[in-house]
């Protein structure tokens, strides 16, 4: 009873082109489109902007007005770059949540089954998500870090306590804030694939970034001095230190490399589990 028509005779309007197949680049294009077709992406990026620029400016303004009342010890420790970039502390929460959500948002809604159905080799999906997220976040956080820095220096200049981008270690610290934030988000992407639930992944991420250093401080001193510098956020934040302590175990770049190592572990673990588990 069923008519057997050849493909060409089928009434599907125009035939599809011949080069239809899945490539890594196309999966990235898809992820790029997915990112920009959700409102939450815009909200989160706006929140990152506000956290970095708003809080950076606020801290700089408050420091400027309080400057004449500050004790000489405080003034000696004052770092104009760090003050203007202080918003990173809040921004890391926002960027971390964004990294987690681009993965767990698919698990909670079931979208992941469509994504893996379209790219059943699976690994390209993880790679595409990580690359697209990293590119977008790096661009946004670099721009906001520079804006926050220049705004902060402008506000501090009323008391002539500002620094310049050309000063030793300053440019590295500003770019470093963006790099640190991006890698925080990538760690979120990796943990998202490992944990798959939004709440669980966010709790793990902030447990690692915020709680571990606090626990580290509670260690006996001889242990703490050897362990604490290697804790993920301690290591990662070295890149934002303008005048690093030359005797420190990890310098700005070696610290950042260690931090990248942690993020890589999360991503690799996520990749292994993504390949192995049922969707």
């Amino acid at each position: 009873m069923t008519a057997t028509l050849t493909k060409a005779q089928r009434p599907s309007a125009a035939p599809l082109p011949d080069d239809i197949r899945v490539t890594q680049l196309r999966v990235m294009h898809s992820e790029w489109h997915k990112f920009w077709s959700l409102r939450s992406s815009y909200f989160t990026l706006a929140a990152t902007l506000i956290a970095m620029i708003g809080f950076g400016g606020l801290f700089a303004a408050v420091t400027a007005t309080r400057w004449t009342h500050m004790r000489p010890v405080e003034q000696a420790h004052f770092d104009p770059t760090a003050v203007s970039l202080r918003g990173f502390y809040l921004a890391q929460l926002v960027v971390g949540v964004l990294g987690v959500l681009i993965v767990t948002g698919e698990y909670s809604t079931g979208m992941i089954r469509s994504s893996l159905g379209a790219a059943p080799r699976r690994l390209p999906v993880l790679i595409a998500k990580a690359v697209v997220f990293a590119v977008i976040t790096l661009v946004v956080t670099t721009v906001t870090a520079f804006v926050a820095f220049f705004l902060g220096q402008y506000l501090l200049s009323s008391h002539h306590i500002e620094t310049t981008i050309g000063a030793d270690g300053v440019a590295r610290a500003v770019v470093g804030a963006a790099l640190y934030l991006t890698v925080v988000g990538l760690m979120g992407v990796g943990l998202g694939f490992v944990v798959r639930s939004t709440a669980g992944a966010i709790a793990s991420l902030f447990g690692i970034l915020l709680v571990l250093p606090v626990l580290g401080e509670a260690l006996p001193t001889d242990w703490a001095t050897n362990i604490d510098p290697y804790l993920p956020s301690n290591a990662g934040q070295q890149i934002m230190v303008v005048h690093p302590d030359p005797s420190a175990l990890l310098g700005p770049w070696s610290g950042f490399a260690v931090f990248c190592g942690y993020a890589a572990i999360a991503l690799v673990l996520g990749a292994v589990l993504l390949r192995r588990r049922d969707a």
Partner: protein
Amino acid sequence: MIDAVGVTKRYGDRVAVDDVTFTVRPGAVTGFLGPNGAGKSTTMRMILGLDAQTAGEVRVNGKRYADHPAPLREVGALLEAKAVHTGRSAYNHLLALALTHGIPRRRVDEVVELVGLREVARKRVGGFSLGMGQRLGVAAALLGDPHTLVLDEPVNGLDPEGVRWIRQLLRSLVADGRTVFLSSHLMSEMELTADHLVIIGRGRLIADTSMAEFTARFSRKVVRVRTPEGGALRDLLVGPDVTVTAPETGLLEVHGLTSGEIGQLACRNAIPLEELTPVTASLEEAFMDLTQDAVEFSVHQDVLTERTAS
């Protein structure tokens, strides 16, 4: 063409699919029939490589689904559970899937038009009704213009209008010469559409047969007989090709004899009959009989009749 060979899926201790082998032949509708929990959805997820089988192999057009360079071109699937991000619009959802394969945008417009979602394509999926969600799922399945479609209980929960739409769609897909693998827990769905039946119960293959063969074998005739002398009549009727059951006192259900034969036998032996009705057992009943032993949780209902209440 879908080939499943010895497919088994275990979730911990629970065997969801147990050594199942079947073939979905091209250019026809194969109905995948089984009670709830039989393992239909699990089998379909294994076809698409979403769940990994514990043992056995599933091939789609000769290869594992994941080994096809353009899987959406081979198989389009509508799964049981929702597979859409609620925050995205229908159009953007479809475009995101199309982009992975380099499927042109005009094809996205085409499938949106085809399933009748044009008016709402730019709206977020979160606000869609069940029927609109099914239409979107069908649009996604058709994106790559695949020759094979896997549809998991597509009419479940739909309103009559939605059910009618799905049926028409199925008919047009088959008229195009496509292969359709359609699951349902209702035989009545299959009677309307399927050419071939794969029946499973509790994860095991029960039958793999053409619809015609199934109908010939199972649409048996039953005769309902009501008599005060049920025991006596039963003894007269039973024989090698005749089975008699007594669902309630005074009522017999006879397989293997015509109502005429029963009437004459009763008359000759002076057994009074109060009712003599030939009944054609529906395929639904045949299916229920077949899978009865395999039903995971059979429902025990206390039947309260009006009579006992008054």
